[in-house]
């Protein structure tokens, strides 16, 4: 530590011990040099060591014997107590004895001892001549008093150790025996020495605090799970913890701190949430150092070498130099949110895929949409194959992120599907039902999974860096197809997390395909059934629109159940009937046919509705025993120009709905006894009128019980649904009811649905015009044939 000018001037006032304690002359140059020497030596000692007690002992040693026979340095602790840190004496035994004494009798900080005074007041004390009485007056007990008197305490200077407005302690120099008393100029030198010692103590304390903080901070940073880097204004990474190294795909933090600025970034593909590539200048740390105030940034970080993908939140905060007020460092904290983000992407993908798969029964189109959804979100290309009836693999969807390659592969239909006898890839996955994941880390497996040796021209389109093939599984858990996801031109590597997602997608797709196939199968069964048990087509009723819809719930071998019929049994007299025969199978089908034909026969014999139902009841009772029962809703209609008169008779069946032009629906009819089991039956006829625009809706219990027991549509639900009738064509209404019933039943009906509607046409409402009738999806017939007479 260089000696400043004012110090050497003060040093001139000192008297040197070597001068036999003669008063020194202020002009004596050798004395001044000696004083300077002391302060220079002190400066050197104070500068070299930062360990507190060592430093203080060295400072004290400088004064003995040149300036004192005994030197004590006391420090005030944080709790206010006084503790000596250095005792140096000519007589080493004296020093040890004093240390021992002070250890047993600590100085009372509030007492009369000069050290306590000085520490309290911050003012130095000069005690030129200390009498025994004075020594006893401030002694810390009789032992202390005896010690001081016996050792000949004679003259003393006690100087405060001042730093940053506080007094850290006191530096005391003493002369023993008959030595020269201290004078004012000695006081000044001791005060100067004390000031410098205080500065050193303060620095040492600050340093040790700082070191402690630094060590703590470094321990925190190094061990923090969060990845942290610190970069300077040149973009050099000056600090990185292990977590940062790991997160960025490096082995040690040293690789980061030794790299040239910007040398690390090219190892990664960094994308924002929208998939746009980001450069170094976009990073929050750089933007901060460039004077910006960047928000935390969510990035998708892909290690180019390995394809490892991580989602990170990058936050940067500045370290500002207090002197220049400029940013000197940017501290970057990288939070790994990969799991959260992947789950989020996966969930949103699955929910969108689920929505697509549930929305339509046309699974080919749906699977194409799913393939398109997967690209490029999940993979660079996606192929979906299904197993056909003859065990052939049919490629139903293909999508590629690269338009050229998509075109090269032959568009959405994609490259030809593999055949089931191939030993690897899609064929193997369908045969085994086991999902596969291969990355370029396992080139053999990847090659085996991806290769299509028989179609070399596809190599470009179906190249893969990593590939997932999962089975599409239905309810029986056997594979009915496979989904292939691959990454090719993007460097992203498909992971086990993606495999999990793909397996879920495979299951979801399987359910959808199976459901659609069953739906199609049902449509086929229902069509066959309709031909046997339901009218080929519905008659045309002048001035009215009549529509029927039948949706069979039956499995392949189960037929029978609901039936309906419409026919003209006399001039302008029509009968509409909907019924439900209990049970399934050939026997129920037989009863269905019996019911339908018995009612027709009754009508043309001019029977009343009640008589027709009684006739049917008797016919059922004549059947072989087995409690065949049947419910019927029978409506006869007599047309007049403006309206239709209706007679409604019910036998154990739900009452039909009369929906007026405003959409208000009411049940009409009185409960009557179910047919075939109970004698006697009780049937009531109820009259009603139908006006232009009004709709009559007959239906079976499968409609209102759809979705039972949890999400049952219910009679009330059907009434509500009918409010929309005025806005719909009659076909539209029936389809809407069926659709809602199917929705309630999650696409899987437990019972047949039969709907028969009649709407009286007036001069007005457009909505009541007959709808499009060309789709015979589910046994809906329409007029054309002459009424049966």
């Amino acid at each position, binding site marked *: 530590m260089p000696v400043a000018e004012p110090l050497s001037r003060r040093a001139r006032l000192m008297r040197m011990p070597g001068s036999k304690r003669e008063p020194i002359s202020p002009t004596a140059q050798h004395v001044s040099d000696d004083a300077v020497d002391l302060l220079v030596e002190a400066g050197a000692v104070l500068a070299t060591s930062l360990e507190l007690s060592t430093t203080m002992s060295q400072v004290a040693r400088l004064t003995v014997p040149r300036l004192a026979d005994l030197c004590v340095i006391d420090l005030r602790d944080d709790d206010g107590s006084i503790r000596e840190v250095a005792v140096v004496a000519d007589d080493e035994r004296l020093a040890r004895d004093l240390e021992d004494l002070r250890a047993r009798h600590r100085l009372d900080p509030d007492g009369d001892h000069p050290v306590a005074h000085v520490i309290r007041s911050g003012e130095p004390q000069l005690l030129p001549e200390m009498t025994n009485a004075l020594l006893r007056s401030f002694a810390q007990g009789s032992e202390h008093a005896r010690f001081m008197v016996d050792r000949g305490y004679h003259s003393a200077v006690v100087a405060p150790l001042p730093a940053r407005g506080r007094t850290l302690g006191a530096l005391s120099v003493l002369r023993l025996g008959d030595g020269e008393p201290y004078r004012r100029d000695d006081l000044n030198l001791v005060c100067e020495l004390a000031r410098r010692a205080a500065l050193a103590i303060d620095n040492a304390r600050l340093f040790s605090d700082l070191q402690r903080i630094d060590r703590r901070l470094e321990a925190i940073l190094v061990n923090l799970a969060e990845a942290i880097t610190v970069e300077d204004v040149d973009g050099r990474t000056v600090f990185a913890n292990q977590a940062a190294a790991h997160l960025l795909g490096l082995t040690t933090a040293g690789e980061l701190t030794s790299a040239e600025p910007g040398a690390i970034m090219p190892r990664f593909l960094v994308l924002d949430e929208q998939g746009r590539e980001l450069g170094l200048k976009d990073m929050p740390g750089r933007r901060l150092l460039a004077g910006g105030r960047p928000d935390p940034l969510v990035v998708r970080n892909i290690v180019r070498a390995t394809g490892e993908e991580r989602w990170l939140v990058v936050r940067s905060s500045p370290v500002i130099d207090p002197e220049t007020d400029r940013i000197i460092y940017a501290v970057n904290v990288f939070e790994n949110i990969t799991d959260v983000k992947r789950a989020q992407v996966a969930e949103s993908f699955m929910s969108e895929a689920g929505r697509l798969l549930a929305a339509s029964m046309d699974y080919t189109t749906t699977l194409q949409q799913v393939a398109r959804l997967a690209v490029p979100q999940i993979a660079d290309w996606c192929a979906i194959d299904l197993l056909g009836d003859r065990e052939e693999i049919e490629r139903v969807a293909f999508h590629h992120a690269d338009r050229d390659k998509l075109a090269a592969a032959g568009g959405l239909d994609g490259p030809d599907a593999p055949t089931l006898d191939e030993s690897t890839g899609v064929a193997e996955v369908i045969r085994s039902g086991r999902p596969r994941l291969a990355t370029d880390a396992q080139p053999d497996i990847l090659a085996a999974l991806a290769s299509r040796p028989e179609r070399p021209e596809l190599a470009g389109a179906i190249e893969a860096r990593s590939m997932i093939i999962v089975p599409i599984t239905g309810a029986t858990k056997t594979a009915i197809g496979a989904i292939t996801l691959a990454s090719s031109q993007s460097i992203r590597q498909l992971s086990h997390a993606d495999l999990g997602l793909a397996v879920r997608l495979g299951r979801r797709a399987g359910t959808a395909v199976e459901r659609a196939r069953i739906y199609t199968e049902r449509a086929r069964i229902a069509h066959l059934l309709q031909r046997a048990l339901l009218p080929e087509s519905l008659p045309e009723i002048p001035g009215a629109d009549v529509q029927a819809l039948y949706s069979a719930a039956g499995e392949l071998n189960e037929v029978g159940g609901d039936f309906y019929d419409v026919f003209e049994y006399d001039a302008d007299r029509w009968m509409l009937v909907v019924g439900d025969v*209990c049970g399934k199978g050939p026997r129920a089908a037989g009863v269905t046919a019996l019911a339908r034909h018995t009612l027709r026969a009754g009508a043309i014999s001019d029977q009343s509705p009640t008589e027709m139902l009684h006739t049917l009841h008797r016919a059922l009772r004549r059947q072989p025993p087995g409690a065949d029962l049947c419910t019927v809703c029978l409506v006869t209609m007599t047309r007049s120009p403006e309206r239709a008169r209706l007679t409604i008779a019910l036998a*154990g069946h739900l009452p039909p709905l009369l929906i007026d032009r405003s959409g208000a629906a009411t049940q009409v009819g009185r*409960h*009557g*006894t*179910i047919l075939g089991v109970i004698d006697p039956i009780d049937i009531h006829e109820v009259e009603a009128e139908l006006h232009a625009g009004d709709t009559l809706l007959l239906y079976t219990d499968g409609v209102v019980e759809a979705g039972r*027991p949890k999400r049952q549509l219910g009679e009330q639900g059907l009434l509500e649904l009918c409010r929309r009738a005025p806005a719909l064509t009659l076909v539209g209404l029936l389809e809407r009811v069926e659709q809602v019933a199917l929705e309630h039943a999650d696409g899987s009906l437990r019972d047949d649905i039969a709907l028969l509607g009649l709407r009286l046409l007036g001069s007005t409402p457009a909505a009541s015009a007959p709808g499009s009738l060309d789709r015979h999806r589910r046994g809906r017939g329409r007029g054309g044939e002459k009424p049966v007479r």
Partner: protein
Amino acid sequence: MVVLRLIGELDLAGAPLFQSEIDGAEISASAMVVLDLRELQFIDSTGLRVIFSAHARSLERGQQFAVTNGSEQVQRLLSITRVGEHVRIIDSPEDMGAQL
């Protein structure tokens, strides 16, 4: 008295099980048969048929026969088909026992 508790749904799927219980020796030998429908959530026409055939069998055997009220849907179906009018409906199996 035999009380047969029906829980859940009685439809095409459950009917055969019910039928086999009704035909079982224990019920055949009892003087009284009570179908406890209080925990029956749903019944369809097939279920109705097996209940009614149980009723018919009891009459043939000279047994007393009653059912307790089921869920709203069960009651609704008994009402729509008017089967309820032909079968003795009681509040609980104890009501039947109390008459002895």
